[in-house]
């Protein structure tokens, strides 16, 4: 590894900074366009929206400063806690099942079970379909009175399974989770597959020699080796599923009532339906902080993981 500059003992003067700027000008140039885009489209709007959260604003008339009131109101708002609860349920279940299924699929493909090429091809197809299409399509499939799922159950005589998948407040969220798992298991599968395929065949040969069976092999040999990738994929899924909006919005609008409300839909409704931008911005602030914390945890553990490998 190249040795970096040991910056510990240099005097931190302006001259020093200017010299560094010039010396590393190529590096800075490389990152400049990205930094500019970030600043303009992410950092500045983020700061702006943080500042909105201190006001009471309806988007048209002039804003009124209210300080922490929005946050106080937020933590007393039952709809917020409901959305947060749903969000957590969604994140946990989606992550668990997409990672679980993804891993199982990857192992099946790697171990070349019969039909593995079909699996590899098919499982990834739903990933390539936009969330909106998936949402609308499944909305029609799950329609309680004429959707094909319930009519299939009817034909099979399973009337008791003809549920109101999206209309029953107890079911709606889980239905959406199911659809998301349907769509993204192929995504995690591919990430896991890449890692699993890297496992050297010698290890597998040794395992076969020792007579290690499939299940044991998967959990006690393969899993530990790809632990780091697994960890990363899990964390990624957590972060991405926490931000969910599209699929819930298209399928239920967060309903019925607020049975499937998540933070993303709650934010949108507050901002644009009830026109409380200040309040909505406070939701945005809280969301960002939560996800940021999760990212930090990931960073912390992944660094740890790196050291462990070494």
């Amino acid at each position: 590894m190249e040795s970096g500059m040991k910056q510990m003992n240099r005097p931190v003067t302006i001259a020093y900074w200017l010299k560094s700027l010039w010396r590393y000008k190529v590096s800075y140039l490389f990152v400049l366009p990205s930094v500019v885009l970030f600043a303009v489209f992410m950092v500045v709007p983020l700061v702006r929206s943080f500042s909105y959260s201190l006001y009471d604003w309806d988007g048209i008339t002039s804003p009124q400063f209210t300080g922490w009131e929005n946050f106080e109101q937020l933590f007393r708002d039952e709809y917020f806690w409901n959305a947060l609860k749903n969000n957590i349920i969604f994140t946990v279940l989606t992550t668990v099942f997409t990672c679980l299924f993804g891993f199982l699929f990857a192992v099946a493909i790697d171990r070349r079970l019969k039909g593995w090429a079909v699996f590899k091809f098919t499982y990834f197809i739903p990933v390539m379909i936009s969330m909106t299409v998936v949402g609308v399509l499944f909305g029609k499939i799950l329609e309680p009175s004429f959707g094909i799922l319930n009519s299939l159950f009817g034909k099979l005589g399973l009337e008791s399974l003809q549920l109101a998948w999206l209309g029953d407040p107890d079911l709606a969220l889980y239905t959406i989770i199911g659809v998301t798992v349907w769509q993204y298991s192929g995504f995690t599968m591919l990430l896991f597959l890449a890692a699993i395929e890297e496992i050297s065949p010698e290890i597998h040969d040794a395992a076969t020699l020792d007579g290690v069976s499939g299940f044991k092999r998967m959990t006690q040999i393969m899993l530990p080796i790809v632990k780091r990738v697994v960890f990363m994929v899990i964390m990624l899924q957590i972060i991405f599923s926490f931000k969910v909006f599209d699929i819930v919005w298209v399928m239920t609008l967060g309903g019925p009532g607020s049975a499937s409300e998540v933070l993303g839909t709650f934010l949108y409704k507050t901002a644009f339906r009830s026109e409380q931008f200040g309040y909505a911005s406070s939701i945005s602030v809280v969301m960002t902080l939560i996800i940021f914390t999760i990212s930090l945890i990931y960073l912390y553990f992944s660094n740890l993981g790196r050291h462990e490998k070494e």
Partner: protein
Amino acid sequence: MKKIGMILIYAFLWVWVVLMLAPLLYMLLTSFKSDQEILNSPWTLPHKPDFGNYIGAWFGKGLTDITLGTNFLNSIVITVSTLVFLTLLSTLAGYALGRHQFPGSKFLYIAIIGLIAVPVHGLLVPIWNFMDQMAMLNNRLAISLIYTAFSLPFSIVIMRSYFESIPTAMEEAARIDGCKEIGVFWHIGLPMAKGAVSTVIIINVVNIWSELLFATVLLTKPEVRTLPLAISLFSQNMYSTSFGMLFAGLTMATLPLLVMYFFFQKRIVKGMAMGALK
């Protein structure tokens, strides 16, 4: 015992194959049916393939000269340019962060990871205001840049990770031969990163193509709307109960990406394998 286990496993796998394909098949078949058929006989094959739904969905209601073809073109322009920007910027930044040591690189990297955390729908209002002030609403280049910004953090992480993990021998050689940094990057670093670039593209293309929230808010004119946006407006139109046309629209919105998938399938897997996971 083991046999039963294997049977269960195979059953599980094949059931999933059916589960994943069935809804798509349903979408395709239904798009060819008339509305009566859809509600009354959802299970049969269409009586005769009725392209009327496709024609209806393509031309819209004939209120304007905008057809789905226009929207399709918009989507392509926006997606392709976003991907181009994304590739360029993420490889540049990833390379610098992964290869060069410069003051602030660690800080920048952590900041970038932090940006992955930002829930972008919270940025909707400030960005809308900003675009409005700059009179850049309905500007496809602007929305391209916005998408690029949103996709950059994760892509940079991937690229940096990749660049960190590949050997530096060739680059050292190039430098000794007198190549400037940019040359090293362009002639050696970039070509070597083809796999990771594929990964970045694959991971982001679906999200960019089908992005809805910002497209809905920022693209108000019909002539600049993207394809998924047009389809979603169609489906939200509570005044139209033509499911057949809706499904035709859905199919048309899906096809481009699926076609892309079929063609690049090998690349995808290779890309993911070479990628980022190291």
